[in-house]
């Protein structure tokens, strides 16, 4: 009897792992296909789709597609642009939004509740519903830069960065987190004569590690994967981010191997980053779920 139930247990375990494994295949196969295809010449890439060879590094394997992709398009520039736009936005978002949340939670000031309510109300406005008028505004805004005062933000870095620095979700995440910090700590620091800046910099921010990670990861994903907005506001190659740079590969003669190489180039770093910080990524998505 004991023998039987042990076997039964082993069988059940095997079934469970098989089910989990089959589902896992569904989620990885397009990504494996992308990586393997990026190593193959076009003719082989297409003929391999007829068999499981599509998912294996077999046949004429090389990195040629990667070199060709760099030759065809300014891939390095696109990646650089995306890194600049994403990095600067994430950094500014963390600072501006945490400062705002600090003021909402710890400081008593006239208008606080009204401003916070307005900011949280923006959460129900999807970006897609304001993109068109935002385009009109961005095309007329002044900018004081190296060339002096200019009008119109189209084709620039700032047009991809500034509108996204402050957002309701990030402020909300910081507010939720700060509310759970002991308020006496902040008041005690104030009583002892610390300035607001010191309280923010020396007392609160050192405790904010987890929420900083959450906010940074969410913002990173949104910014790096931006598509609709840069598509509308960036026509010049100089400022194009990776997702819009893709269009390059669909002009004239289409080379699927190069496309796969480019897709792998812009995806693998994010995937590696994700797998490395997997727990933090998943925790950050889970924490957005608390907002109901």
């Amino acid at each position: 009897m004991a023998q039987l139930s042990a076997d039964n247990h082993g069988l059940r375990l095997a079934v469970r792992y098989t089910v989990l494994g089959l589902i896992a295949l569904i989620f990885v196969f397009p990504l494996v296909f992308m990586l393997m295809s990026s190593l193959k010449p076009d003719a082989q890439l297409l003929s391999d789709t007829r068999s499981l060879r599509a998912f294996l590094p077999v046949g004429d394997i090389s990195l040629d597609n990667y070199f060709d992709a760099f030759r065809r398009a300014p891939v390095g520039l696109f990646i650089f642009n995306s890194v600049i736009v994403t990095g600067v936005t994430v950094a500014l978002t963390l600072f501006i939004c945490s400062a705002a949340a600090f003021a909402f939670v710890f400081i008593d000031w006239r208008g606080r509740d009204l401003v916070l309510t307005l900011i949280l109300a923006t959460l129900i406005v999807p970006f897609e519903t304001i993109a068109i008028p935002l385009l009109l505004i961005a095309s007329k805004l002044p900018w004081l830069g190296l060339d002096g005062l200019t009008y119109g933000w189209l084709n620039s870095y700032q047009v991809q960065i500034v509108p996204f620095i402050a957002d309701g979700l990030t402020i909300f995440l910081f507010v939720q987190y700060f509310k759970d910090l002991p308020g006496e700590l902040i008041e005690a620091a104030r009583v002892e004569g610390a300035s607001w800046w010191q309280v923010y910099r020396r007392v609160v921010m050192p405790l904010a590690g987890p929420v900083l990670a959450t906010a940074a990861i969410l913002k990173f994903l949104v910014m790096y994967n931006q598509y609709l907005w840069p598509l509308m506001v960036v026509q010049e190659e100089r400022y194009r981010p990776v997702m819009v740079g893709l269009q390059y590969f669909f002009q004239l003669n289409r080379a699927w191997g190069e496309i796969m190489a480019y897709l792998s180039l812009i995806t693998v770093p994010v995937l590696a980053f994700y797998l490395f910080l997997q727990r933090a990524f998943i925790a950050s998505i889970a924490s957005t779920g608390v907002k109901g």
Partner: protein
Amino acid sequence: MASKFTRSNSTGWLMAGPAAVLMGLFIVLPFLFAIGLSFTNQRLISPNPTQFVGLSNYSQLLGIGLLTLEPERDDAGEILREEDGTVSYPALRGYTRNNPDYPQFDGMREWFSVSLGESRTYVLARDVVFAKAVVNTIIFVLVVAPVQGGLALVLALLINQKLRGINVFRAIYFMPVVVSIVVVSLLWRFIYDGQSGLLNNLLGALTFGAFPRIDWLGNPSTALGAIIAMSIWQAVGFHMVIWLSGLQTISPSLYEAAAIEGASKWQTFRYVTWPGLRNTAVLVLIVITMQAFALFAQIDVMTSGGPLDSTQTIVFQAVERGYGKQDISGGSTISVILFVFVLAISLLQRWLTREKK
């Protein structure tokens, strides 16, 4: 916490000010602009001054009419038939072009029609493409919300088991979420391809070649379904994680009690797990619905709204007009209509999660 040490109007405004100004300029202002512009004929670049046009943008987009026509008859009262035997009806043109008896139909086109007995009822729309876009978006939402939410729950329950290495599976199921939807859409073009597509090859191999090859994205009856399946594949891991965090808020003592009572697996789910997930369920459905209404990138990369407008969506139309055709007021009007949909959904959420006294 209201003491003289925590009160400071100037510091409060100084620290919250930058965020408030940025959000006012880049979210609130464009939002108000969208509403304002929807009553004008503003274009991105235009030699003519902008004019107030009232609700005409809305009536242009949403104008719908019903017209029932009787078959044409000859002098003897016999129904006239076309050469192929179908019943002949008077030409629609006669009603929709400068017919003084039917001013409400002027400029409309046929959207679809249904036969009722001998007569035929035509549903006319002033903007047939937009009407299709609204219907496609609603179909997308109505399919994606329950299917994706349900699959995500199944995955969450699978992942919530105590098994060695379960975190590896969780990480894999979540993986597509971090990949850009643009990249995903391009990859799936390969899967759906009519010639060497992976899906056709797989179906062919499973049925020993009996399954006919389908150009999934090029066929009006399969294109939207193909995009729905891909969208679910990409986003289901996101909602699995939200369900998981909901599952983990359910007290283990409830499960212990259920086990002691001898509850079956289904009973445990029905009477312990599911009631504990009520608020999570509302949240998951709302988030999916909001995201689904914003459907754009997949369409832009995979089909551009085709074939035969079978994958047109509200946001795709807003961008095509507001940006592609530089018709800012038309795009803004569509944006406002989209916002009304989204607002209705979030009011529904408020109502569903209201505190029960």
